[in-house]
């Protein structure tokens, strides 16, 4: 009896361990594969070509700068929209809304997070971009700004969900302490609750950025996909092309093993590194906050 129990214990522990390690193994394998397929680019394409402003693969022009700037412009735009909206919504749900409202809003926001991005892109093409074209008097409605708007919409649920959890975890006693000192609701939120939930809120924002920069379908549908260097202020209102959209659009048509193929993988590597950077930044912020708390409590 005891022996069979030990066996089960052994097997279950190992199985859990294995599934834990498999996550690491998969990430490592993906990275290895990306490097294997992407690294040859560095030998095949001159760095001066690679860091150029022309992306025109048919004529062997592999400048990835317009793609990187395209991704950055769309993502930064998206964050400028999603950050205030997301934090505002989270604060409203966690701090201000009456309970019945909270019980409607929270699932609704999470439902929004589960909306397939292709559906949002569809709405973007049919509604947002014609509206922007007319409203802002642009030659085309398929611009970086359109992408930012929709990406912002995609990032908001992520930010709201994580930030609201963080705010909700702030002990009620903090709020009562501040109220009892004569703080108004807004003073309590701004000076006590938000600072106390700082690390969670920062994580929320970082996750939102990660979500936005990796998003493909929507941006491919609404940003116009013109690989133009986007560094002027006006480029927010002209078409751009992001790294993700480039890979998705062109991967199906390249010859396996060609220079173009390798370069697409190289773009994938860059994207992977950016995501990795954002994630590391996020977790180091959380880690630092936690270490500080531990130091204080010990």
């Amino acid at each position, binding site marked *: 009896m005891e022996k069979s129990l030990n066996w089960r214990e052994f097997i279950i522990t190992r199985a859990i361990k294995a599934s834990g390690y498999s996550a690491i193994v998969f990430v490592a394998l993906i990275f290895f594969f990306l490097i294997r397929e992407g690294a040859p680019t560095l030998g095949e394409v001159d760095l001066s070509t690679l860091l150029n402003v022309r992306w025109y693969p048919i004529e062997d022009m592999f400048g990835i700068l317009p793609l990187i700037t395209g991704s950055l412009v769309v993502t930064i735009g998206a964050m400028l929209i999603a950050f205030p909206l997301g934090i505002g919504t989270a604060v409203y749900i966690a701090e201000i809304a009456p309970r019945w409202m909270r019980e409607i809003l929270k699932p609704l926001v999470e439902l929004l997070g589960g909306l397939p991005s292709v559906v949002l892109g569809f709405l973007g093409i049919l509604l947002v971009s014609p509206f922007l074209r007319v409203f802002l008097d642009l030659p085309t409605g398929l611009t970086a700004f359109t992408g930012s708007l929709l990406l912002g919409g995609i990032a908001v649920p992520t930010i709201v969900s994580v930030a609201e959890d963080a705010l909700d975890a702030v002990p009620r006693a903090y709020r009562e*302490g501040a*109220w009892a000192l004569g703080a108004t609701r807004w003073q309590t939120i701004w000076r006590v609750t938000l600072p106390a939930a700082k690390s969670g809120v920062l994580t929320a924002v970082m996750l939102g950025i990660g979500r936005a920069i990796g998003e493909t379908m929507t941006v491919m549908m609404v940003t116009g996909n013109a690989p133009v260097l986007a560094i002027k202020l006006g480029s927010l209102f002209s078409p751009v092309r992001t790294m993700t959209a480039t890979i998705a659009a062109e991967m199906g048509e390249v010859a396996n093993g060609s220079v173009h193929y390798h370069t697409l993988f190289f773009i994938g590597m860059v994207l992977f590194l950016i995501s990795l950077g954002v994630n590391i930044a996020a977790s180091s912020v959380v880690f630092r906050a936690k270490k500080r708390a531990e130091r204080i409590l010990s």
Partner: protein
Amino acid sequence: MNKIIIESLSLQYSDGTESLRDVSLDIRQNAVTVLFGPAGGGKSTLLRCLNRLNDLTEVKSSAGRILIDGENILDPQIDVIALRRKVGMVFARPVPLPMSIRENIIYGLELAGEKRRAKLDEAVERSLKLAALWDEVKDRLDAPAIALSGGQQQRVCLARVLALQPEIILLDEPTSGLDPISTGKVEAALQELKKDYTIVLVPHSVQQAGRTADYAAFFLQGELVEYGEGKSIFTAPKEKKTEDYITGRFG
């Protein structure tokens, strides 16, 4: 002189738990009034009515009046923020806000719009001295308040309230998490403070009630059973229930 007059106050929470039934009570100025009794008796609820902190919890119904200096503070029209500056509160668990010691203490003043550095520094020193904490922390006012011991944290909370120079101080089991020495310091501070303030205390034990009370009110299941001078209640209670509780037959 009566600082607070409570007239037939009743209150019921939405989930039907702790409540008050027709409580009338006069609280004297410059004295320590103790509200004691078993858990769930409505003591904390009453305290939280006195600074309208109950506004933010789910209250089903309430009736009655509370007069402070003759003004009905349950009137929806009154300035709740001003009320809370006049009626300070210290909680059972010490909750320093996530800031330094100094910031904790000047937080309320800053909210009230005080910006002059000299005024704030003076308030920090004065209120920390009143809370019997100055000597222990004067060299590290910029350290995070959470780094202090539990007893020190609770005195920071007391100092934070004192910095606002309220007229009334409410304390909800302020020493429940503290060791006997810290408890002694807080109790001693209260005896000093009552010269200038009106103090309403929910003690965490009958012994503390006996030690600190000038006046005492015994609450049982939302009702005020007995109210009178501390000395007479703890030596010769009139009601059988009070006597049973004090002598440890229940509770």
